[in-house]
């Protein structure tokens, strides 16, 4: 029983800890939300449309015979369903989102304001060119910024994600080898063991054989191993710099020299560009192709907040093979190069039907222009400083995977420090959820045992980093003190408890089916 003051409120609210389970499953103004299919929306509709005036269908035998199987909801029901779900989710607008190699940074509201201008948001890709000059100018300006920041002569804006950009880069490389008659013999792509999984997947998808390159003790590409595998059967190497261990590849110039000497091209995975933007131009490192995740380095939303965009910058050697479309500017204004003829005769084709993610172009350029060249340099500096602050503040309790020297934009720990505690990286991550923090990336990169990869980005203030570090230190101390129960069943305070990921992967249920006996059951 806590002491009450004169107005009947607890003087120390935090001491009021009795927590009876709720009767309905709701929690503190959050109702327990069922699947949208499990409501009572069957047989009703939220909109009142007139019966279509048709004289029969042209589909013949293909006309649907069974009900479509979608619940009907009114507008308020729909709004509430999705807002309730969103309240159970985590977002960068709520707190630090330290997923390593994902660069989850704040999405400035200025970007949103610009993207909603009707001249950008209400246009159609098939509109006459004369009516979208502003949008084309924006694409041209964005291309100019990307080329300037990377020191590369050409850019393909249209790829719609990082992996799509990788595909674009490797297709340009393949086109270049085809043009020089070397495609038949150059069938291999070299990829370091610490690479993002998309790198070998992309190379395999384009038809290449993937050969792994070993890593040195200090977490970098083993140049001797690379050199021994380079030859006239290699089409390209794919290297991430800084790499997925959060380390700068010190031998990058040598890697690039050896690659070009062997007649191969250097694809750089630009996922970690945030660590070097404004400081290092990949073109100066000898890169031939690199994708830039606008949804990472240039602050456009990830996932549900908007589609990705992965423009690819290309070197002089690969520029002729860039896919259509691109914007050109002459005395008549801006226009799009759309066809594989004239100046685009060697273009390898195109990657999407239209011009790519216009809304993301607007957001990314807003971010660039509001920061300026000096501001972007500071983005990289602050991102690296923040990661090193976390590494320095945690490395006495947790084991840094590469303790010697500073890291770049992400701090990488292994699970050596959990040895003997019976607590795994997964348990630790789940306990972070209870403390109000989204976990870092786990078990990646694969080359580090029980990896925990933390990327704070420049978004976080020192105060927010200190809150994160405080929670991490308390948890690490609890783990070392043998408080196993806190970890093994975690999360205890999340809307859903520990999920059976193994069962979900082994026997996935990909489609909702009505419970037997209900009026929706087939």
């Amino acid at each position, binding site marked *: 029983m806590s002491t009450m003051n004169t107005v009947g409120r607890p003087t120390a609210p935090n001491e009021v800890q009795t927590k009876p389970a709720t009767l309905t499953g709701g929690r503190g103004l959050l109702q327990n939300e069922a699947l949208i299919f499990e409501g009572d929306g069957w047989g009703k509709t939220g909109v009142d449309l007139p019966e279509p005036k048709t004289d029969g269908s042209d589909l013949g035998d293909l006309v649907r015979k069974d009900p479509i199987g979608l619940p009907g909801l009114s507008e308020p029901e729909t709004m509430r369903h999705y807002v309730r779900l969103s309240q159970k989710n985590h977002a960068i607008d709520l707190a630090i989102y330290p997923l390593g190699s994902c660069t989850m940074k704040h999405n400035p509201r200025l970007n949103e304001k610009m993207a909603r201008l009707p001249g950008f948001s209400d246009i159609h890709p098939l509109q006459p060119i004369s009516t979208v000059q502003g949008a084309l100018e924006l694409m041209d300006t964005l291309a100019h910024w990307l080329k300037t920041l990377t020191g590369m002569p050409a850019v393909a804006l249209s790829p719609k994600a990082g992996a799509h950009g990788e595909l674009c880069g490797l297709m340009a490389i393949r086109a270049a080898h085809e043009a020089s008659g070397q495609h038949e013999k150059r069938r291999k792509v070299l990829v370091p063991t610490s690479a993002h*999984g998309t790198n070998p997947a992309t190379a395999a998808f384009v038809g290449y054989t993937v050969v792994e390159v070993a890593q040195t003790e200090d977490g970098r590409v083993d140049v001797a191993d690379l050199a021994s595998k380079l030859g006239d059967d290699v089409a390209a190497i794919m290297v991430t710099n800084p790499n997925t261990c959060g380390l700068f590849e010190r031998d990058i110039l040598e890697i690039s020299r050896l690659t070009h000497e062997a007649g191969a091209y250097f694809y750089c995975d630009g996922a970690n560009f945030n660590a070097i933007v404004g400081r290092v131009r990949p073109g100066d490192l000898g890169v031939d192709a690199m994708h830039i995740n606008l949804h990472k380095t240039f602050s456009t939303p990830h996932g549900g907040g908007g589609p990705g965009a992965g423009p690819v910058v290309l070197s002089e050697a690969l520029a002729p093979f860039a896919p259509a479309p691109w914007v050109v500017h002459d005395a008549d204004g801006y226009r799009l190069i759309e066809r594989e003829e004239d100046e685009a005769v060697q273009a390898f084709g195109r990657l999407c039907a239209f011009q790519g993610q216009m809304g993301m172009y607007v957001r990314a350029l807003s971010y660039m222009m509001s920061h300026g060249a000096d501001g972007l340099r500071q983005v990289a500096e602050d991102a690296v400083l923040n990661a090193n602050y976390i590494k320095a503040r945690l490395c006495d309790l947790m084991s840094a995977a590469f303790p010697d020297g500073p890291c770049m934009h992400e701090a990488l720990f292994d699970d050596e420090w959990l040895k003997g505690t019976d607590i795994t990286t997964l348990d630790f991550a789940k306990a972070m959820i209870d403390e109000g923090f989204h976990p870092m990336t786990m*078990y990646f990169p*694969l080359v580090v*045992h029980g990896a925990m990869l933390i990327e704070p980005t420049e978004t976080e203030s020192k105060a927010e980093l200190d809150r994160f570090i405080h929670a991490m230190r308390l948890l690490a101390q609890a783990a070392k003190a043998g408080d196993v129960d806190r970890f093994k069943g975690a999360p205890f305070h999340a809307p859903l408890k520990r999920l059976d*990921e*193994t069962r979900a*992967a*082994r026997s996935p249920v990909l489609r909702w089916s009505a419970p037997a006996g209900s009026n929706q059951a087939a």
Partner: protein
Amino acid sequence: MKFTKDHEWVSLDGDIATVGISKHAADALGDVVFVEVPEVGKTVAKGDSFAVVESVKAASDVYAPVSGEVVEANDALSTAPETVNSAPQADGWFAKIKVSDAAELDALMDQAAYDAFLATL
């Protein structure tokens, strides 16, 4: 039973080698959720990627510890991948290979050498 540095095991009976992944590998992967075994009749060279094992943590290639022709594949793993965790060095075998050069096994580690190798990791 002999082992590779990539944590495959091989057990030779006549000229038929049964191959799989070691207990150490299965433990390190965590719960295995998917296994892709090679097709019967496929010819593999020592060191070729010939199978894939996927766990909740990672997807990994499995390399052929010996050269030869795949004569039998453990198709039961497609519906019961958990066998790789419960009995990695027995019922969780991946494939049987008719070896083309039994001498290749000489370069592999025996149990004692493999245990010593694991201690260095």
